[in-house]
């Protein structure tokens, strides 16, 4: 072992290194580390909050979706009802219209029948008179026997 001035040289170097480390190395590094730690903590916090928000939003979405579905179902039901009502009404109208048409047709037929009966009656009356004239070989006074003829005709 050969001790010499190196001893003090080493001590001085040591002191200078410690001073430099204390002044220029340690503070900025630890500060940066603390800041990063804070930032990471904040980031994790924010992530937690965002997750909470997401959960809330999802709940809201599902609620809204459910409500909308219900509303849609209501609307469809209503529309179905309305459509049924319209169809019923249309059916009713059609039936009424048909009945009306049938009634009209019946009336017309009756009219036609009556008219035909009338025509037939007059023709029969005329034929009866013609026949009677042939039988009697004289003219039947239409005016005088009008009553009789009409009676005859109405009996047909």
């Amino acid at each position, binding site marked *: *072992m*050969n*001790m*010499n*001035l*190196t*001893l*003090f*040289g*080493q*001590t001085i*170097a*040591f*002191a200078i*290194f*410690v001073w*430099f*480390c*204390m002044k*220029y*190395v*340690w503070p*900025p*590094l*630890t*500060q*940066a*580390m603390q*800041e*990063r730690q804070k*930032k990471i903590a904040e980031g994790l916090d924010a992530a937690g909050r965002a997750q909470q928000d997401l959960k809330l939003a999802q709940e809201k979405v599902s609620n809204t979706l459910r409500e909308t579905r219900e509303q849609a179902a209501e609307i469809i039901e209503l529309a179905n009802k309305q459509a049924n009502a319209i169809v019923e009404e249309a059916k009713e109208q059609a039936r009424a219209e048909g009945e009306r048409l049938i009634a009209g047709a019946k009336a017309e037929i009756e009219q036609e029948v009556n008219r035909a009966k009338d025509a037939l009656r007059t023709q029969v009356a005329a034929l009866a008179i013609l026949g009677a004239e042939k039988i009697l070989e004289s003219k039947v006074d239409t005016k005088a026997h009008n009553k009789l003829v009409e009676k005859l005709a109405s009996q047909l």
Partner: protein
Amino acid sequence: MANTPVEYIQHHLQNLVFGSHPEKGWIIAHTPEEVKQMGFWSVNLDTLGWSIAMGVLFLWLFRKAALSASTKVPGFLQNLTEMCIEFVEGTVRDTFHGRNPLIAPLALTIFVWVFLMNSLKWVPVDIIPGLAHLLGAPYFKIVPTADPNGTFGLSLGVFVLILFYSIKIKGVGGFTKELAFTPFNHWALVPFNLFLEIIGLLAKPLSLALRLFGNMYAGEVVFILIALLPFWAQWVLNVPWAIFHILVIPLQAFIFMVLTIVYLSAAHEDHH
């Protein structure tokens, strides 16, 4: 240079000394006799040079990391330095129960600096001395912690801090009282207490320096012995030995740091 194994080993264990020779003035010592004649007024250029180089490397690396330190995603250097700092800070927090802004940077400096100085042992023993020899240096020993001057220089600094904080926290009276009245609190035993406590106090820097020096010196001697083998056989021994030093080198740096923290923690504790 070296011819016999003994000469080879002695040659490798001799520092490059620059000092004041009684007859030749300030010169670089070329023989062990010259070193002896120089006595205390000389400097181990290799020890001091490599110490300072390693210290500057440490501060340069960490300063670089400190300058680019940000809250963004850290890079490799940033991670490395922050890992060291976190490790040292944790150790200090566990061991040192006071408030002193010097302790943590001091511990970091000791840990990294001693680690870097120790790690010079991984450089094969002949490479740098061989290069130095080509440049004209008669001796060259690169591991500063295998030189007692290097380790005692460190422990001397720690010792000064122990004394400084003991007196600063406890006062001159308090510190003297502590030395005089522990472990036996009786006036008749004051001389005995003083004897015991002063030995205990001096043992702190001594044990710090000798532990590191002893470990590094012994490891260095073994590397030199292995280097005496034929070159094709050396790897059988020096590879395992170097791998073993992956444990020894950081461990010694860590022990030096922890003991420094413990001693300074004791210096801060006021028992009264």
